[in-house]
């Protein structure tokens, strides 16, 4: 790791002020991606602004079907929150499968979506739930938020403060892990909500998380795994690496989608 200056922010406003003063500053939340990258000298920020001690970023609020999750909420908290589990168990299930216990107790939902790793789990959920990403400046629809590999709509210095969504009637998430890293090699989040069915895929697309529209159409007619039987997933636009070819990933998208629907219907 190169030497770096550490700053602990006390509020969102304080964090924004600190990053402005920094040379090449980075926000750090759980640090589950940034810190390993820094250790390997693949990232070299001059300053780290720590968001972990900002109270306004914490906590999960559930009011009827309306859910708000503070950006600084850890995966372990999302996995264990009883109120959330009551209205959207699929999201808690997703959080319970991220990384390992250490990662789940350090990593945060805001950090994950701001990083937008193409193999991260949360982006699929945000897209399928039609979530709103709340920042210290504005509100952004998930659809507009995830713009490519490790790319988001966030502007310099902008901080994700919360995510908000309406709990769907049914939802399910299934992923197939990369055998080495255990990131999602393909993860599919299926949600049947007021505005119809959404199917979002992570880990597979060569431009990051995406919606599988033909699956959505089929499931809108009949929300059953069998409804997906005839649908071919094209390997075009799938990632390809030593662990999974585009063709294999396309297969995994189909298989995980069927399993996610089955789980949603359990």
């Amino acid at each position, binding site marked *: *790791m*190169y*030497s770096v200056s550490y700053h602990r922010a006390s509020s969102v406003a304080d964090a924004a002020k600190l990053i402005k003063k920094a040379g090449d500053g980075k926000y750090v939340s759980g640090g589950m991606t940034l810190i390993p990258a820094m250790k*390997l*000298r693949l990232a070299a920020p001059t300053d780290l602004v720590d968001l972990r001690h900002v109270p306004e970023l914490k906590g999960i609020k559930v009011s009827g079907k309306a859910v708000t999750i503070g950006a600084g909420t850890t995966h372990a908290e999302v996995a264990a929150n009883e109120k959330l589990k009551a209205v959207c168990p699929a999201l808690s299930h997703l959080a319970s499968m991220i990384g390992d216990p250490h990662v789940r107790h350090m990593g945060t939902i805001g950090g994950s979506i701001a990083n937008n790793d193409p193999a991260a789990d949360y982006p699929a959920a945000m897209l399928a739930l039609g979530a709103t990403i709340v920042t210290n400046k504005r509100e952004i629809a998930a659809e507009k938020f995830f713009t490519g590999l490790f790319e988001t709509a966030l502007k310099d210095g902008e901080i994700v403060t919360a995510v908000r969504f309406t709990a769907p009637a049914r939802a399910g998430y299934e992923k*197939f892990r990369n*055998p*080495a*890293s255990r990131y999602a090699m393909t993860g599919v989040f299926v949600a049947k909500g007021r505005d119809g069915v959404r199917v979002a895929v992570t880990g597979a697309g060569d431009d990051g998380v995406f919606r599988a529209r033909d699956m959505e159409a089929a499931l809108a007619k009949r929300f059953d795994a069998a409804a997906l039987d005839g649908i071919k997933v094209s390997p075009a636009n799938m990632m390809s690496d*030593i*662990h*999974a*070819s585009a063709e*294999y990933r396309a*297969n*995994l998208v189909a*298989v995980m989608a069927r399993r996610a629907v089955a789980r949603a219907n359990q």
Partner: protein
Amino acid sequence: MGIEGVGARVARKEDKRFITGAGRYVDDMVVPGMKHAVFVRSPHAHAEIRKIDVAAARAMPGVIDVLVGRQLKADGIGNLICGWMIHSKDGSPMKMGAWSPLAVDRVRYVGDAIAIVVAETKGQARDAAEAVEVTYKELKAVTDASKAMGRGAPQLHPEAPNNLIFDWDLGNAAETDAAFGKAAHVVEMDVINNRLVPNAMEPRAALGHYDKAEDHYTCWTTSQNPHVARLVMSAFYNVAPENKLRVIAPDVGGGFGSKIYIYPEEIVCLWASKKTGVPVKWVADRTESFMTDAHGRDHHTHAAMAFDKDYRILGFKVETKANLGAYMSLFSSATPTYLYATLLSGQYDIPAIHANVKAIYTNTAPVDAYRGAGRPEAAFLIERMMEVSARRFGISPAELRRRNFITSFPHQTPVIMNYDAGDFAASLDAAMKAADYAGFARRRDEAKRRGRLRGIGMSCYIEACGIAPSAAVGSLGAGVGLWESAEVRVNAVGTIEVLTGSHSHGQGHETTFAQLVSQRLSVPLDSISIVHGDTDKVQMGMGTYGSRSGAVGMSAIVKALDKVEAKARKIAAHLMEADEADIVIENGELKVAGTDKKVPWFQMALAAYTAHNLPAGMEPGLKETAFYDPSNFTFPAGCYVCEVEVDPDTGHTDIVQFVAADDFGNIINPMIVEGQVHGGVTQGIGQALLEGASYDESSGQLVTASYMDYTMPRAGDVPSYRLSTSNTPAPSNPLGIKGCGEAGAIGSPPAVINAITDAIGTEELTMPATPQKVWAALKAATRH
């Protein structure tokens, strides 16, 4: 068997310090004035070094010096060597290219060391290493052994035209051809044994300390054999004469073979310490471990087996290409030859065998022995061949094996080995019973109803441990003898120190060796200490590899104990005015049989050291030394049965059952033996399902250089193992021990692949059988 003696499940004495974080590893060592080193390494797989500019790096904060290969050469430090001479079939010696500890004008693999930066802190050394400017002229690289032999391939070493190191054979080609001429059935297949990265938990490390006042060097290093390290660094690398060089291998966190070898870093740290005047410590980071620890396996083999009409094996023909990487590591030539082809008879009576092995340079990390070393490659080949043949003939895999088992001993194979003991059918029976082999069809049908493909596979392996006798291995090209030494020191109060040339880096010697002494001399376990890993304490030793510490290391202790016991009896007999033949040792006392006369052990020891009343002419003291040179290899063998379920949608394989029935000869501590089998089988499952080092063919970059891409087995990847042993004692050593350290890694990969191929109904599957590969194989098989 007592509660602490031979055969007891004694908890490991060393584990207290290991599991409380109190172990002392090289990185824990601190010497006053010590500084930190980082190596500048090649980012290219193959390039000429045009210029190395260290001026900017030298001026960086905290930097003490930056040293390069030219300076090392000027100081007379030698090239690294391979210590086992192999002659090609035309009689010519193997063609060893020069391996300079710091590359001077050419780099040959990604990670090749070029310069060492010594600085106040590791961070400063890293910063400065990035400031070393190396001008390269990139050359074409080749990572695949077959391609490296081809026309127009990049040439790595002028000494080795066509990158061919040797073209060696073993066995009788004419007899084997004749056997194929008589064959009723011939089965041919291509087998790849995938390249593995050893991944010891503790990365390699070295701390070199030159003491100017004494003109003496000390090297703390992560070694499985510190004495061999000292010998090689003195005799070949010209670091210092042996009496001026102390090598200490303290607690070492796993080796699996990768810490046998002498690497550039320890040599360079010692030299740099003299050059800079400060002690120099280097600790590899995980990426360096992936890139520069000697890798394992990497064989490509074409084989054919000839059978008569009754499916009895007539002959076996094997052609193997062994990728040895960019340089010849210390024992790299022995692994694909005498540790591989000599085991090609497996557990079977095969009248004629011929093996040809070509060893080849490529622009990849050096390849050397890794847990099993040659024997896993042999076992995988034979046991895939037996399984595929049985399926092709339509007879049961067990029956084909039984029909060909060697059943009488000693048995001379056509490939050097003389098997001295074994009962292969006993292990097969035990494994099949434990696995409920007979009930498999029912389990398969039940799995099918759940949409799962269930398969079963077996492997009947044999291996060879305790490589010896020294004269024999010398005649085969070994540069060293393969005996072991022991010294048993009985202190004046009766406590005991055992100095051994074996090295413990996870094996539990501090417990098992003490159990042996406790049993023999009837003293409590905690009054016995095992001392190892320091050339200033132990005079000489050959170290730990090839599952030799029990069979060879403990046998040396037995020889020393024989002498200690004889002298103790003499002293006791003298003290009690009895006949030495009547002395029995039990319950911490030396007694005169049939009387109530006795002397406590400590009193006898005290008498040896006060020397007030010793037999006439006896020297005072009680300390004995022995060297033990085995008369034969030992031959652990066994049968493993693996049962899997494959998810046809994703290709994911679950190992639902794994049974191991081993013959390890006599066992000192069953719990430790089971631990060795657990670890070995898990590594074997790792090779079969998960692990594989992968280089990008055009750039020569290691693609799997971290745990993000290299899959290590996790607890959830393996089932609870069901283990048993049915043992035939090894006739060649006094304890009847065969060795158990590598068997699991040797026997398990073919069992796993045989099970998966049974499940998916096609033999077209290479290791590691990742979900993607299994899915693709299944898809290809259904298409046809």
